[in-house]
């Protein structure tokens, strides 16, 4: 719905403007929905970190990714990566790594053969070494095997490793966890985080799964019907009440925290929300491994946040944060969403309209948030109830 403007100018950035009119939409792999719309999008993405593209099925996310990769015939494609205009180049010259939903490993080659195929054709020598990607994706034990001897999760790990070995300037991932069973997803997400930490290239990650996105992404692009709906930093987007994202049942916000210290007596760890940490902006979670100073991302579902006007002194809920209400939105007849700022981050609470009126909540009011569930995105998706 418009061009998002980044705050400040980054040296490395990805600018794209794509126009693609199609009769059929590719939504990953085989299935083609015959939604008859055109894709028209302009956006600017950060030149590092993970940008997620989110939207309902058939909205054109995969098509967008394919246009970026050069796999689709487009009317118009302007693609500028850190100053290089690559939009008019054929796919094989764009130096973009692509991880497909169905991995597309070469069946006639072993895992190592697949890796070598990419490594032999790498775009530069600045990329990771073979040993590095093998370590990052933990595929050392699989090298001799053929693709048909691997599980879904293993195949995707190999596919990611293979794409990385071409030393791309950007890694594109099209719903890589779609064909992977839930057990195997976590390890792969961990591996991707490792890759993101170690590699200095941006990643564009298409998914319709909010959990994956909240765990990985730094930046979010929301699409619908071939158009850009909104884009911006992940944390901001997840707390935007005007977006569909926050209207979902499983709506949640993501907070960046740091480990402050551990409480071995009660097996807890203290996380702090802001840089200027006062005692008040701290969260307690189950004992984590990690050093003070380590970044930890947490996810707080809106339904698990309640509001009090005074700080409750005798409550079993450990996590009580003070904040100021910045926005209120009525969801339906019975419920309302309250957006509160805490230590420069935002937390959403979903409460009943009755309570809202009863407490006379309005923007600017100082309130206390009682947080029942803190999900630790860096460890497991399983949430922690502390209360």
């Amino acid at each position: 719905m418009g061009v998002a403007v980044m705050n400040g100018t980054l040296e490395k950035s990805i600018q794209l403007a794509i126009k693609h009119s199609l009769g059929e939409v590719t939504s990953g792999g085989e299935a083609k929905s015959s939604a008859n719309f055109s894709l028209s999008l302009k956006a600017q993405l950060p030149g590092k970190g993970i940008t997620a593209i989110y939207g309902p099925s058939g909205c054109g996310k995969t098509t967008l990714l394919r246009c970026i990769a050069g796999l689709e015939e487009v009317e118009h494609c302007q693609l500028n990566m850190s100053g290089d205009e690559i939009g008019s180049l054929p796919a094989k010259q764009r130096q973009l790594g692509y991880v497909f939903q169905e991995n597309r490993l070469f069946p006639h080659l072993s895992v190592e053969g697949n890796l070598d195929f990419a490594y032999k054709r790498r775009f530069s020598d600045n990329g990771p070494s073979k040993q590095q990607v093998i370590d990052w994706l933990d595929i050392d034990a699989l090298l001799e095997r053929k693709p048909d001897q691997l599980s879904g999760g293993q195949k995707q790990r190999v596919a990611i490793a293979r794409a990385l070995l071409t030393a791309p300037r950007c890694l594109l991932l099209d719903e890589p966890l779609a064909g992977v069973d839930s057990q195997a997803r976590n390890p792969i997400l961990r591996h991707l985080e490792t890759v993101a930490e170690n590699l200095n290239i941006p990643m564009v990650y298409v998914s319709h799964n909010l959990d994956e996105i909240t765990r990985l992404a730094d930046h979010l692009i929301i699409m619908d019907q071939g158009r850009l709906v909104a884009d911006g930093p992940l944390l901001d987007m997840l707390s935007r009440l005007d977006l569909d994202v926050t209207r979902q049942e499983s709506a949640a916000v993501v907070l960046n925290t740091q480990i402050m210290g551990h409480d071995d007596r009660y097996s807890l760890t203290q996380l702090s929300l802001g840089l200027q940490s006062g005692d008040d902006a701290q969260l307690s979670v189950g004992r984590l491994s990690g050093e003070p100073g380590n970044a930890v991302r947490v996810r707080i579902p809106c339904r698990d946040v309640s509001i009090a006007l005074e700080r409750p002194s005798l409550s079993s809920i450990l996590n009580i944060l003070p904040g100021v209400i910045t926005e209120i939105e009525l969801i339906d007849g019975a419920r309302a969403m309250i957006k509160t700022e805490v230590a420069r981050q935002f937390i959403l609470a979903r409460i009943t309209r009755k309570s809202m009126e009863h407490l006379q909540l309005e923007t600017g009011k100082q309130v206390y948030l009682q947080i029942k569930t803190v999900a630790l995105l860096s460890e497991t998706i399983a949430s922690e109830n502390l209360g």
Partner: protein
Amino acid sequence: MNLLASNIAALWLTLQLAAVTTTILLIVSAPLAWWLARSESRFASVVEATVALPLILPPTVIGFYLLIAFSPDNFLGSGWSALTGHSLAFTFSGLVVGSVIYSLPFVVQPLQTGFQHFDHKLLEAAETMGAGTLDRFLNLIIPLTRRAFATAALLGFAHTMGEFGVVLMIGGNIPGETQVLSIALYDHVEALDYQRAHWLAGGLLAFSFALLILLYGFNRHKAMNK
């Protein structure tokens, strides 16, 4: 020419013809079969029908039209002699032209089937890794359609080995040049020289059989050990 020498000459000539024809056909048919496997244009069925013609046309029909086409009065014949200084009829080159047409569907069709079963999505993956068209063809398509290529090559080779009608019309029966095995055999029989005929026929039968046993044995062995 004594018995053995003349038969060996015919055998050698036939092998050469089959080898040259098969090689040319593989090179020509691969892109053609690829296009046929992937094309959505209506023109494709016209091309398919044209390719399939030699399957049902009597070889003598092909030979008949070729003889006319090779004539120095006509385009192909005069063009060829302008280019090379030789005629096409009654030469090995002429036989190659005839054999290529005659065996075309036997090479194109297995390749087309193989390509149709090929997972085209793999090509996109290779493209993102920087592989160009020839690269993808040599390193992806050929290894994964090996069976189709083998079948096409074998069929093309075998079919050309057995060619008779076309060569009968355009060959001129010149020993060492156009007297292929089937013609030599025919010649011996017509001249009532049954001893020569037996040597030739029996020898070819044994040779073909041995070749096929090797091939099928090899395929089976590979399949079992997979």
